[in-house]
């Protein structure tokens, strides 16, 4: 298993857990006690964490291995680009679906709480990470077809 593939698995499990667990806890706090500093802080933390999460595979790669080893070739780059594009398309579809579904459920004359917006953003982060990781894993395939860079 090469480094980008390991990164995809890391994204897939650790990323989802890191977004979902604090996100669900924050939603429960908002639902139970109303909006306060703690859930807003948690949402901000999740967004910052999501924004910086892509650094982790590179950081681990730099710390763990020598600099002379090849860890990211053209094929990995192509797979990464395609996976990011698939993630973006899924994010876009999710955004449109979220807007239209909320409009249909509440009705054209209704109103929705502003707290829905950070929740939508959280959902977008989860979906983007999930789809990107899944697309990477699907493109690498199941078996190790020469993915060892050793």
């Amino acid at each position, binding site marked *: 298993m090469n480094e980008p593939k390991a990164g995809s698995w890391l994204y897939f499990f650790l990323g989802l857990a890191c977004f979902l667990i604090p996100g669900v806890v924050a939603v429960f706090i908002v639902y139970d006690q109303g909006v306060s500093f703690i859930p807003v802080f948690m949402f901000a933390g999740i967004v910052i964490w999501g924004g910086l999460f892509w650094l982790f595979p590179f950081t681990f790669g730099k710390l763990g291995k020598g600099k002379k080893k090849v860890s990211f070739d053209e094929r990995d780059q192509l797979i990464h680009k395609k996976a990011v594009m698939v993630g973006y398309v899924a994010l876009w579809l999710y955004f449109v679906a979220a807007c239209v579904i909320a409009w249909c459920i509440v009705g054209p004359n*209704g109103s929705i709480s502003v707290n829905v917006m950070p929740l939508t953003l959280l959902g977008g982060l989860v979906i983007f990470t999930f789809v990107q990781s899944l697309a990477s894993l699907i493109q690498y395939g199941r078996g190790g077809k020469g993915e060892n860079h050793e």
Partner: protein
Amino acid sequence: MNRYQKLAWFNLIVIAATIIITSAAIAIEIHIREYSTTGLYFFVATLALLKFKPFLFKKPQGGNKVVCDERDSFIIKRALSFAYTTFWWVFILSCFLLFLIIGPRNSVPTITLPLMAIGGALFMQIVCSVAILVQYGRSGKGEKS
């Protein structure tokens, strides 16, 4: 100027015309009646011109004709990637700004959400078209297809 450049220019012109015509219609109607209902119709009618792209800019027919080469497809992919990336930041900013400006205990009309989706689509189209035009550059470097 090749087909993709023409499409990009067409997108930009139609979107600019939509914004100008809709704003003018809303402003005039509000000035006359103090409320506006026809702005949406102007918006949809002008934006519907984008659907005529396949008829206005047809792909070259025939086996010998080249639709696009590797450079064109690379430019399109980069433009799309750039458009999606900028949309992601706009999405984050719009969600947080709405939350911060209006306040956590308030609510917004549901029509805001479809408007955000339409605004996002227009924004992506504008960024993608501009990115295509910028990548091709100003002068014609063999862009005829």
